[in-house]
């Protein structure tokens, strides 16, 4: 499915299911948002205090278990790790901080546009700029180093984490918060499983789309990106969910500069990680232990974002959020420069 036709099918499935999720009860333009859903999981564990953002999102469980099952059955479960895990953990934190200043992961960014939220255009511009800057470091030899094979058993830890999430969601112990708006669990679990399988097979990645187009003039992944926008746009219109404009958009703000910069950080950091939050989750499910660590970085980043008041809201972005973007830029640039062989000699 790693072909143009496969990408059109994959992107269309994601776009259609995402629009239906909103119709069935998910928050507006949030059919799928990997950043928001990880944030809600952090909340349900009590890692932050915004009670309306507490939920163990079945979509995330589905991504993990769907991608794991398909990778296992097609012999693509390949357990590796050891490529600068601690740095990846922090990149995960900062990618989440950037995404929550904008209010959405790269996937929700395109779904917001497909729902008529024009603020997403600023996000897409920032995201693209971040990817181009990161790509320039790739040209200068940027690498976080290679991974090495690990025991196959290590690759089961992340899927087991997914099973534990599912158990907590079904058993509903009192220490788990489940307050957020959501579509029926049986449906969103199904969405997660399907998208997990489709994303694993197609290698769908928001960051990869723009990166490959820019670096190697390969538009395969970008086609998936565009297929999501078109299919979700059509579905949103059919379902009466389309609302064009900048103001009064669900879970969004109109501060263009910070929409731009939030996604700039998300794109820049994700580029160095080698993929967007969705792709990191899929890679983690198919045995990439470093991506599993990145996922945990995203989870911690979500908790930090809400505990320190960094995340954007309908009212805009506060001073803490603005400072965090500057810190994120300095950190990511430090990692980019010091790991680029043509800038910093290896010895």
């Amino acid at each position, binding site marked *: 499915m*790693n072909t143009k036709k496969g990408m059109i099918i994959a992107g269309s499935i994601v776009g259609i299911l995402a629009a239906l999720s909103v119709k069935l009860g998910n928050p507006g333009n949030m059919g799928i948002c990997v950043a928001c859903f990880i944030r809600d999981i952090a909340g349900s564990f009590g890692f932050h205090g915004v009670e309306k953002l507490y939920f163990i999102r079945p979509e995330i469980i589905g991504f993990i278990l769907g991608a794991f099952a398909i990778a296992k059955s097609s012999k*693509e479960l*390949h357990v*590796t790790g050891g*490529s600068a895990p601690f740095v990846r953990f922090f990149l995960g934190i900062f990618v989440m901080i950037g995404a929550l200043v904008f209010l959405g992961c790269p996937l929700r960014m395109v779904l917001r546009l497909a729902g008529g939220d024009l603020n997403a255009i600023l996000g897409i511009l920032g995201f693209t700029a971040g990817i181009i800057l990161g790509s320039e470091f*790739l*040209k200068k030899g940027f*690498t*976080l180093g*290679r*991974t*090495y*094979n690990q025991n196959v058993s290590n690759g089961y830890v992340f899927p087991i984490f997914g099973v534990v999430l599912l158990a907590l969601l079904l058993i509903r112990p009192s220490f788990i918060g489940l307050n957020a708006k959501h579509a029926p669990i049986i449906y969103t679990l199904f969405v997660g499983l399907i998208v997990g399988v489709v994303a694993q097979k197609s*290698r769908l*990645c928001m960051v*990869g789309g723009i*990166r*490959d187009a820019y*670096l*190697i003039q*390969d538009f*395969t992944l970008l086609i998936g990106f565009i297929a999501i926008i078109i299919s979700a746009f059509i579905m949103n219109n059919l379902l009466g969910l389309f609302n064009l404009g900048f103001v009064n958009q669900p879970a969004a703000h109109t501060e263009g500069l910070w929409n731009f910069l939030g996604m700039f950080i998300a794109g820049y950091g994700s580029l160095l990680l*080698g*993929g967007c939050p969705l792709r990191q989750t899929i890679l983690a499910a198919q045995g990439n232990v470093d991506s599993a660590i990145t996922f945990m970085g995203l989870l911690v980043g979500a908790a930090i974002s809400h505990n320190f008041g960094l995340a954007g809201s309908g009212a805009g972005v506060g001073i803490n959020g603005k400072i965090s973007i500057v810190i994120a830029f300095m950190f990511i640039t430090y990692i980019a420069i010091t790991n680029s062989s043509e800038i910093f000699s290896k010895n």
Partner: protein
Amino acid sequence: MKIIDARGRGCPEPVLMTKRALKEYDSFEVIVNEHVAKENISRLLTKSDKKFHVIEENNEFKVIIEK
């Protein structure tokens, strides 16, 4: 023959390493250990009209580029 070891490298490094090698060598071999890396390199080579074949052994892929 020049061997490019791209095992364990994340996306898109194997493709970039291959692209760099194409400028320097007429024939060489790239070793990768991920399906996605093999597919991406194959796509680059097909697009660049290069003759190549892939050998799979022990969960690794050798992409051999011929003149």
